[in-house]
């Protein structure tokens, strides 16, 4: 027998590692080089690009929308490659029938397994972080206001270790050829559909790392814009992820430990992990929807984090300035285009606001997953931007304009025509007043008659009525002409002294 020689470098001298590492570090380095997760990183990138990136980047460049959507999409794209790779690596010893051979080495089996799991997790985390970095860098270049929301990213990163731990433990425990696809599918199934059982803001299922906010709100422009992003749910989710990882890996160690000390240690890790995960689930069940659209968990809530965000609004250069939160700067042109004629028509008239300011909406949890949204302010100059906004799924520019016409445009005109201090006119408007309102508000073709039906007789003329015909006549005029007419006849119109025949 001859002594083994150290590998020689090109100069013939023994080659030493550039950085001397302890045994665990060297083992980890070996595992990093041989992890199948490295080979699956292109698949991670491809899946994320196809399923997540394109959708996230198609959203308006608002930090809240993109970060919260990213939390949901990224982990979903990572489930299959990360869990599968971990299961594959976990089953390696059993697959190669090397368990007995490696059992006589100096290192306990659990520590070897932890090194393999850590290497797989490290590559998965690198993939996860790369995806986050790309989205955040792109958003930083496009966003009109604000900075990165870190908690959704933290939850995404924390969501990876449980996936790899579950896959690894299953692979190590059942090292067959079928275990990898089956545990991958089972994890994906459990992960992706865990939120289906959720109901309301007290649901324990909110603990799923895919949940970035209240159900039926999710990533909404009104959430975390006017108020800071509340980390309560994120903290519980991270706690759950860490606890679950510890419990699964501890459980793996329980079956692999071959000494009383190690068995105690793994039992302790398992118990602590289960305790942390259970506590996190319990905390998630105490959540409630706050008026700003985020989940508050009383035990984790910091009252200081619920303060409104300071900002300088972005205003249009229209006759009546339309001011929005700077995060909404991208939709300001769409808003001014939608209500531009009405703004031109009423600007400077008695009772018209000098400025229109966006205010936050208030969210309220209803039965089940239903959530009611209302405008927080009743001021004449306050308005809420419709949610969703153009660029979000299910909202086109035409629909956005239609919603603005139905809300802001109609309210602006009715406030000017009907108010003026005459409460009776507000409750029982004259046909001429209805005709002027109907002729002034420009509804896009997408707005159908049935959408406006509740307003007929109260704010709009009944279709086919003489007032409706007068409204069509009035609508033919330019906004400037309508403004001139109103400037001369508004007082009489409000007093009910104008007949339909007198309308231009």
């Amino acid at each position: 027998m001859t002594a083994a020689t150290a590998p020689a470098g090109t100069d013939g001298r023994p080659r030493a590692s550039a950085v001397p590492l302890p045994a665990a570090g060297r083992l980890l380095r070996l595992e990093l080089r041989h992890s199948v997760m490295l080979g699956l990183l292109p698949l991670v990138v491809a899946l994320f690009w196809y399923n997540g990136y394109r959708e996230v980047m198609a959203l308006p460049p608002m930090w809240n929308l993109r970060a919260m959507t990213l939390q949901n999409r990224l982990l979903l794209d990572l489930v299959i490659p990360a869990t599968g790779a971990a299961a594959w690596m976990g089953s390696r010893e059993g697959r190669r029938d090397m368990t007995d051979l490696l059992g006589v080495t100096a290192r306990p089996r659990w520590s070897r397994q932890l090194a393999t799991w850590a290497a797989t997790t490290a590559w998965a985390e690198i993939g996860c972080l790369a995806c986050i970095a790309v989205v955040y860098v792109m958003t930083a270049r496009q966003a009109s206001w604000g900075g990165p929301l870190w908690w959704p990213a933290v939850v995404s990163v924390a969501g990876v270790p449980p996936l790899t731990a579950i896959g690894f433990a299953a692979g190590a425990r059942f090292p067959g050829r079928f275990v990898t696809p089956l545990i991958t599918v089972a994890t994906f199934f459990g992960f992706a559909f865990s939120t289906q059982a959720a109901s309301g803001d007290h649901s324990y299922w909110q603990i799923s790392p895919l949940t970035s906010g209240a159900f039926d709100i999710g990533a909404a422009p009104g959430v975390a814009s006017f108020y800071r992003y509340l980390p309560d749910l994120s903290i519980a989710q991270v706690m759950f992820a860490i606890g679950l990882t510890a419990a699964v890996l501890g459980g793996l160690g329980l079956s692999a430990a071959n000494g009383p000390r190690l068995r105690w240690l793994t039992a302790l890790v398992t118990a602590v992990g289960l305790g942390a995960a259970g506590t996190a689930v319990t905390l998630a069940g105490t959540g409630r929807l706050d008026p700003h659209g985020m989940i508050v968990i009383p035990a984790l809530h910091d009252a200081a984090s619920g303060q409104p965000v300071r900002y300088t609004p972005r205003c249009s250069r229209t006759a009546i300035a339309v001011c929005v939160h700077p995060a909404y700067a991208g939709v300001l042109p769409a808003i001014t285009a939608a209500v531009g004629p009405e703004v031109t028509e009423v600007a400077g008239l008695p009772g018209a606001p000098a400025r229109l300011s966006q205010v936050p909406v208030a969210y309220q949890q209803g039965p089940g997953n239903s959530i009611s949204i209302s405008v927080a302010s009743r001021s004449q100059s306050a308005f809420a931007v419709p949610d969703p906004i153009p660029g979000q799924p299910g909202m086109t520019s035409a629909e956005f304009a239609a919603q603005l016409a139905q809300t802001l445009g109609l309210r602006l005109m009715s406030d000017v025509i009907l108010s003026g201090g005459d409460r009776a006119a507000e409750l029982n408007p004259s046909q001429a007043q209805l005709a002027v309102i109907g002729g002034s508000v420009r509804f896009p073709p997408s707005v159908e008659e049935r959408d406006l039906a509740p307003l007929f007789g109260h704010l709009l003329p009944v279709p086919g009525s003489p007032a409706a015909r007068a409204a069509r006549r009035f609508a033919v005029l330019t906004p400037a002409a309508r403004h001139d007419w109103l400037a001369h006849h508004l007082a009489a119109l409000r007093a009910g002294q104008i007949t339909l025949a007198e309308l231009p």
Partner: protein
Amino acid sequence: MTAAPAGRAPRPVLSSRPDQAPRAILRLAWLHAVSRRLPAALALLAACAAGLRGTLYGHWDAYGALQLPLIIEAACAAVIAVTAGSPFGEPERATGRWLPFLRLGAAVALTALAAGLLAAAGAGMPLAGGFPDLLRNVAGLTGIGLLGAVLLGGPLAWTGPLAYALAGVYALYTDWHPPTLSTPWLWPGRPPHDVGGALCAALVFGAGLAAITIRGARDSAGGDPPA
């Protein structure tokens, strides 16, 4: 090393005697099936069918109703794909002239069984898309899995069907959230009777069958045999 006594030589799998040929072929097929863990695969396919039946009793929203069957179909395809891996490698290829037929038969039989079991599981239940959708998805996903077995090896063949299923899940999601992904190559997102999607799935299934029949699953790198 000593030669085995002539009287105790192992029995040839395929006998040259015509009266024993059918029995020998059955024995060969059985040995092939056992070496690929086909009995376990059958049990898992049955479990998947039972899982589908169980989930169909649940109350799912529109996403779940459409996406759940696809995930279970992908699981079946992944199971079929990983059975393609051979534990013998080169020695088997060098000696087995019946091997291509066995590989073809195993893949076709498992696919047919998977479709049949899932269809039976969905009978009388609100299975989204019905049998045409199920058959198209199982065939297409299995084709991807078989191609993956040829390219990556049997043990890693699951990556194809499962990754594709994730893309399919997303395609179904875009049915509610435009722009809809309408390419027929992403057939899970197409309607059940869509000819383009069915043709693409059939093409992929045919390609997978041809590849696995002719080439067989790739031997795993580093002598990493399937368990």
